[in-house]
């Protein structure tokens, strides 16, 4: 479904990704692990089209080189960036609905997707009317996930969702991800994380990136789900 083939990215003269290749199957959940600065965020941003890259990225048969960044979500890719990046001038629910509004989804389809988001993240319903600028960092990550899920019908990219989360919230976020896997088994996931052990329980595969290169790509044994 998603194929990265020898993808390379440089910022100025500094290479950040060097020949990154991996392929993702439909419904596959991957933990993308590496230290800070290893290239995790850059990999996700490159899939979303925010960097200039060498090599080739194919998604559902489309060569993404010809697909502008703002058209990629329309292919069914949702993205929750690392620092949540909500639109503070809008309410929580408005943030979640904005992608549907931009994509001009029908009212019925918008409602169906919003219901799915609230099913996976029931706590969002309680803060629906609050200004997005007023929610805590952890709650903001939930909103960012909800917003990403509005367009994510095929693939969702989550950048360090657990970083800085209090243990209670981290548990709730993990529960939400499990609900997401149960509700939508055909949705593929890439979750980045610096702690390699944290994602074992819901990712069937762990890809490790070091200094811009794939160092390891293993199937996780004994996965409960």
């Amino acid at each position: 479904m998603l194929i990265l083939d020898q993808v390379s990215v440089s910022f100025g003269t500094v290479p950040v990704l060097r020949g990154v290749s991996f392929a993702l199957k439909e419904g596959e959940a991957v933990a993308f692990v590496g230290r800070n600065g290893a290239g995790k965020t850059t990999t996700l941003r490159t899939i979303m089209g925010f960097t200039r890259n060498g090599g080739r990225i194919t998604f559902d048969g489309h060569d993404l080189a010809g697909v502008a960044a703002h058209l990629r979500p329309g292919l069914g890719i949702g993205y929750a960036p690392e620092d949540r990046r909500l639109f503070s001038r809008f309410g929580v629910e408005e943030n979640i609905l904005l992608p549907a509004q931009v994509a001009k989804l029908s009212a019925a389809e918008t409602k169906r997707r919003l219901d799915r988001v609230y099913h996976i993240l029931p706590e969002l319903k309680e803060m629906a009317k609050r200004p997005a600028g007023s929610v805590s960092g952890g709650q903001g990550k939930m909103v960012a996930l909800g917003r990403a899920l509005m367009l994510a019908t095929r693939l969702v990219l989550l950048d360090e969702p657990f970083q800085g989360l209090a243990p209670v919230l981290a548990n709730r976020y993990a529960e939400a991800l499990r609900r997401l896997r149960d509700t939508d088994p055909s949705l593929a996931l890439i979750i980045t994380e610096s702690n390699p052990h944290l994602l074992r329980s819901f990712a069937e595969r762990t890809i490790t990136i070091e200094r811009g290169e794939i160092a390891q790509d293993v199937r996780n044994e004994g996965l409960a789900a």
Partner: protein
Amino acid sequence: MSFDTIVLAVCDGVAYASLVFLVAVGLTFIFGVLGVLNIAHGSFYALGAYTAVSAGIFLTKAGFSPWLTFPALFVAAIFIGAVLGGLMEKLLLQRIYDKEQVLQILVTFAIFMILENVQRLIWGVQPYFMSEPLQLLGNISLFGISYTAYQTLFLPALAVIVLLGLRYFLRHTAAGAQILAVTEDREAASAIGIDAQKVYFVTFIAGATLAALGGALAAPTTSLMPGMGAEMIVLSFAVAATAGLGQIEGAAVAALMIGLGRSLAVYLAPEFEVLVPYILMVGVLIFRPSGLFGAPQLRKI
């Protein structure tokens, strides 16, 4: 100072403030969304004025109704904003959004210089004047003072319509929501499918059209001369900076302050006329470096 003089000064000030507001709100809108301080904004003002006058003169000479000079003002402004603004954004600005701000200012300054000379090439250096719209609306009496309806009613009404319209557009329409989203975070906006490039293009054209509209509407009240664009860009920058860059409602307040200050100076201390706007600006910025309504380090519209 007699009561009559105060009424006159207020009428002058409000009329002038309305024009300055139109130009300054365009400047501040573009800065708020694109982050580019567009020096060539003054050229849009001047070219809007010259184009409107040329169109008006053509219409009256060709024997059309002088009332057609009114729509000509708007058509001229939209033409300059869409064509010139559109070309400038597509051909030049799009290449430099991720460059340093100094470079962006230099590029827009260069365009300003080029357009200033293009304007001299086309219209020469002799003053142009077209008073039809001013005369057609006649005069009204305010506290015993007779003043043109064009300046006391038409211009302020238009400024208020633009202010309210822009507010409504940004806060209550789908397109406005997209502009706000791109302003706050371009990448996050793209990640939910918003075409930021298109938002920048449309915003720039809208801002440029507002400057050209300011010029077109100023045309019946003044004679057009080379250098008018430079004067206006400096003044509208003073308004935008006093308000806080990116502040739309603030620009209206600052324009009114500076417009009234300037016209009172004309009657009270004429030698300070040119200085007053900048004294006000410096006074505000000493105490509030981000402007009257600006928040430090936060780009907002």
